[in-house]
């Protein structure tokens, strides 16, 4: 869209926003109807279906924009660029200047910040976690919704509308709620017709087919896998959800019917799924785009398994960095799924990621405070945070940097004993957790008051029964999560602190602080001593016990804080994207021997290069921290290709099986060879297909920043 048209659209958007100020449902609906031609992209000739788009414009409305913004968001930087655009007419420029001035303070994140209590404002003074040092930061987003696609596909848009009108008849006092929800479904239909209109009569057969599918979906529920994909994909996009639920369950029956009817065979089906992966990848949300296959609790296990197998085969064929395909498994599951997954991983695919139901179901039950039956519906989203499938939300709206907090505690005052210092550390974590939990609930309240997000609520349990918007009392389980980083470095640092300052008292706290403040300059000898102390990841009880204690402290602080603010759960996640690297930039030298500015350890992994005792020792260490007190801890494992060679494969399988049988919750395995990585840093152009898992997301190695690449190289390869 050209810049002048864009400004006119923003003008309409802003007018609608003001006009419907008193009716948040109507306001959201009208804004969505105005903005869709901007953010939705045209269908490309080889796309499997319509509906791709991204919220990366200057202004818009969505649960989670690409930048750290939500609801009615305004991107100032982008707006400045648009204002400077030479192609703008004078009239449009003036109008946009007005619009920008208005949104500068009307932006939801900005308004949210203004609503903070003084405690929250003072401990979370900045949200610029990518540009400033800090102990904790808020994140603005309503992310991690996992919709009931099964229901969507069973009923179709017309069926959902009927359901709403039945509700409206039964509960006339809530009629407006149901009518507003139905109006959002009409918006979906409107978009389908708009797309169909743009494609109909095209010379390209694929585009014509899509037009036909969209037309059909306006009037009925889907009948084929392709129709089902189209509807679920478009709905997901329009609802502003970024995750795709238990896909094998909701597409498995369609696949079976297509095969039965001769519309698809294995090859065609895999090809179609592969095209779907490519479409998802095109949007580029590598931190999100989660979909789950396998696991307990699927109503149609046989058909779902078939879809799951094809989905894995499609990964092998397409080799994409999104979607983040996640395999849940349990003892007794069809072994073909795990076999296929291992074969894909052995070939260098980073997906599927492996999630062990036998551990995760009881862990989630305990962490979320729900029954095992309910915990069967656990599902990871984004970088690995668990929610309950279409029953809970748990948006990660805060970041805590445990290493930074420890450094501040160390600088603040002197301590008589290790216990004294530990207590100070735990209480400081608690202080930050309290405000993070408060900001989380503020954010939910803000979102609940800003818009009903009916497209989400329609596919969430309880919202319709309660006639309540998802973030305004509708969702059954209102949880929250907080991303925790630096815990491993903090634990390794505490080992050094305890020994150097207290047990063997070889130096004073002041000396240690001074050396850290100068980033060990002139004190390499001391740094080496720090490095030589026990480190998490070597099955060393001293280091692992402290890591376990740090995990417990931060998890319990979150749980307590969540209770105090009235969340159904508030849980830590030890996930990772590249935040460990970004936060590390602004985190000073640490007593574990880490230089200032270097990455923090990643997920639940040891610090780079610190695991030296072999794979079993690493796995044993990773098994020690409790899985029952948080909402997901990413366990990365990088294995060399030779682990999957004929001679080793059975041993590697036994290794992984033992880890899972001993309580291992998950693994994200990357198969790479050190030679590949080093060469890739020299000649990135030759490695377009080299995929490396960095924490909870997968990306092509050559697309990662230099420091991330170096961090990967520094991690031990087995």
């Amino acid at each position: 869209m050209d810049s002048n048209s864009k400004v006119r659209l923003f003008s309409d958007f802003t007018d609608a926003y003001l006009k419907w100020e008193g009716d948040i449902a109507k306001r959201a609906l009208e804004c969505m109807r105005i903005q869709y031609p901007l953010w939705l992209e045209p269908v490309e000739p080889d796309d499997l279906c319509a509906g791709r788009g991204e919220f990366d414009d200057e202004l818009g409305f969505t649960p989670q924009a690409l930048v750290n913004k939500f609801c009615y968001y305004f991107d100032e930087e982008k707006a400045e660029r648009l204002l400077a655009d030479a192609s703008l007419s004078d009239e449009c420029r003036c109008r946009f200047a007005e619009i920008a001035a208005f949104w500068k303070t009307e932006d939801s994140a900005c308004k949210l910040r203004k609503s903070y209590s003084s405690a929250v404002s003072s401990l979370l003074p900045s949200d610029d976690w990518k540009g400033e040092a800090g102990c904790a930061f808020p994140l603005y987003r309503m992310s991690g919704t996992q919709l009931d696609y099964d229901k969507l596909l069973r009923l179709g848009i017309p069926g959902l509308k009927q359901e709403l009108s039945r509700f409206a008849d039964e509960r006339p006092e809530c009629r407006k709620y149901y009518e507003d929800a139905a109006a959002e479904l009409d918006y979906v239909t409107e978009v389908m017709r708009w797309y169909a209109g743009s494609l109909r009569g095209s010379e390209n057969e694929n585009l014509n087919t899509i037009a036909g599918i969209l037309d059909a979906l306006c009037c009925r529920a889907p009948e084929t896998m392709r129709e089902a994909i189209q509807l679920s994909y478009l709905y997901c996009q329009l609802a502003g959800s970024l995750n795709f639920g238990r896909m094998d369950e909701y597409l498995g029956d369609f696949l079976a019917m297509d095969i039965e009817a001769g519309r698809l065979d294995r090859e065609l089906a895999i090809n179609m799924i592969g095209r779907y992966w490519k479409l998802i990848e095109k949007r580029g949300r590598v931190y999100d785009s989660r979909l789950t296959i396998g696991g307990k609790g699927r109503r149609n296990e046989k058909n779902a398994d078939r879809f799951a197998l094809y989905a894995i085969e499609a990964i092998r064929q397409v080799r994409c960095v999104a979607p983040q395909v996640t395999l849940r498994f349990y003892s007794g599951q069809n072994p073909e799924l795990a076999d296929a997954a291992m074969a894909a991983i052995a070939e260098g695919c980073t997906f599927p990621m492996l999630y062990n139901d036998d551990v995760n179901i009881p862990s989630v039950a305990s962490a979320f405070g729900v029954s095992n039956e309910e915990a069967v519906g656990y599902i990871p989203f984004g970088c690995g945070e668990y929610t309950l499938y279409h029953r809970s939300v748990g948006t990660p709206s805060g970041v805590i940097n445990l290493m930074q907090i420890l450094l501040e505690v160390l600088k603040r005052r002197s301590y008589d004993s290790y216990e004294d210092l530990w207590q100070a550390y735990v209480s400081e974590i608690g202080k930050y957790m309290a405000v993070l939990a408060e900001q989380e609930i503020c954010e939910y309240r803000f979102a609940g008051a800003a818009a009903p997000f009916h497209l989400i609520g329609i596919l969430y349990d309880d919202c319709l029964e309660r006639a309540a918007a998802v973030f305004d009392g509708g969702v059954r389980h209102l949880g929250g999560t907080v991303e925790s980083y630096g815990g491993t470095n903090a634990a390794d640092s505490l080992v050094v602190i305890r020994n150097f300052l207290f047990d063997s008292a070889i130096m004073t706290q002041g000396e240690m602080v001074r050396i850290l403040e100068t980033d060990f300059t002139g004190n390499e000898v001391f740094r080496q001593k720090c490095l030589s102390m026990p480190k998490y990841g070597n099955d060393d009880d001293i280091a692992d016990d402290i890591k376990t204690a740090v995990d417990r402290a931060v998890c319990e602080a979150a749980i307590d804080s969540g209770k105090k603010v009235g969340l159904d759960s508030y849980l830590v996640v030890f996930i990772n994207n590249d935040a460990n690297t970004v936060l590390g930039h602004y985190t000073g030298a640490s007593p574990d021997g880490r230089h200032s500015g270097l990455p923090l350890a990643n997920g639940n992994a040891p610090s780079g290069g610190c695991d030296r005792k072999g794979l079993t020792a690493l796995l044993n260490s990773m098994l020690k921290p409790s899985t029952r007190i948080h909402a997901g801890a990413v366990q990365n494992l990088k294995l060399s290709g030779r682990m999957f060679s004929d001679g080793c494969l059975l041993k590697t399988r036994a290794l992984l099986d033992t880890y899972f049988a001993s309580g291992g919750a998950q693994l994200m395995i990357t198969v790479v060879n050190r030679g590949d990585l080093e060469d890739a840093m020299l000649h990135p152009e030759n490695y377009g297909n080299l995929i490396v898992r960095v924490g909870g997301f997968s990306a092509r190695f050559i697309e990662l920043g230099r420091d991330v690449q170096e961090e990967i190289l520094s991690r031990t390869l087995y």
Partner: protein
Amino acid sequence: MVSGLVFDIQRCALHDGPGIRSVAFLKGCPLRCLWCCNPESQSAERQLFYHSGKCLSCFGCVGVCPAGALRAGTEGVEIDFGLCVSCGKCGKICPAGAIGLYGYEMTAEEVVVEFERDAGYYASSGGGITLSGGEPLMQAEFASEILMLSKKKGWHTAVETCGTVPAVSLSTALPFADLFLLDFKLSDRELFKEYAGGDYGMMMNFLEVLAASGKEIILRTVFVPGVNDTSNHAEAVAALCRKYPCIAAVNVMPLHDYGKTKYTDIGRPVPEIYGNLPNEGQVDRWLSLLREAGIENVKKG
């Protein structure tokens, strides 16, 4: 409590017997093979090492050495290995782990406690524990005790041996070992003396006793081009396999030089023989020679 000198325990070993294994490396070896990849294993005593690459030139070690073995040099520490009395003081003070002693005392129980950490992996993979070295049977009592305690735990046990120890050393270990990885380097009495410094007759006697027990044996044959890649040697290996049916397999271990820095670290010159490493083609040719000689179960590794 029986104790002995260990210089390393490796976990998650995938190439020292079946399944996933933990391997304890015991110090001391009667042989002096010219190609040895664990030169630090040879001496039965604690022994000084110095990794120059890790040294920070703080010279803390120089000050504590009671023997005057260490001197501050322009590029790190200058060492007179001959003067070292293995007191270990330098290793205690070194911040970088750059200097210290190879070999530390452990009781058999302590070794088994370390092994125990990976017991779950042994069970699921059909793995177990392996004693290597050095020559583990140089510390026969210690080795036997570890094996016995491991058997009590129900683990599969393996011993990697050069076979050049008195048969009596074998007999104490024999009841508690399931598998022997026998390093069979050279089949010529003279060459064995020349290249490995060993007594061929003693090894043959060892093999005789071992084979009589019926325990499973895997022959590990190091492949050193120009030294033992002869058809005579291939024939001899084949003859052994025919003679002793308990030899279940032959593994060819191509010569490598991964251990070369360890020589420098203990003050020894890097073996000249490392100048002639085998390439893939040579290894393949050697493998086919062995197969032609009639050995069925032979592979690399």
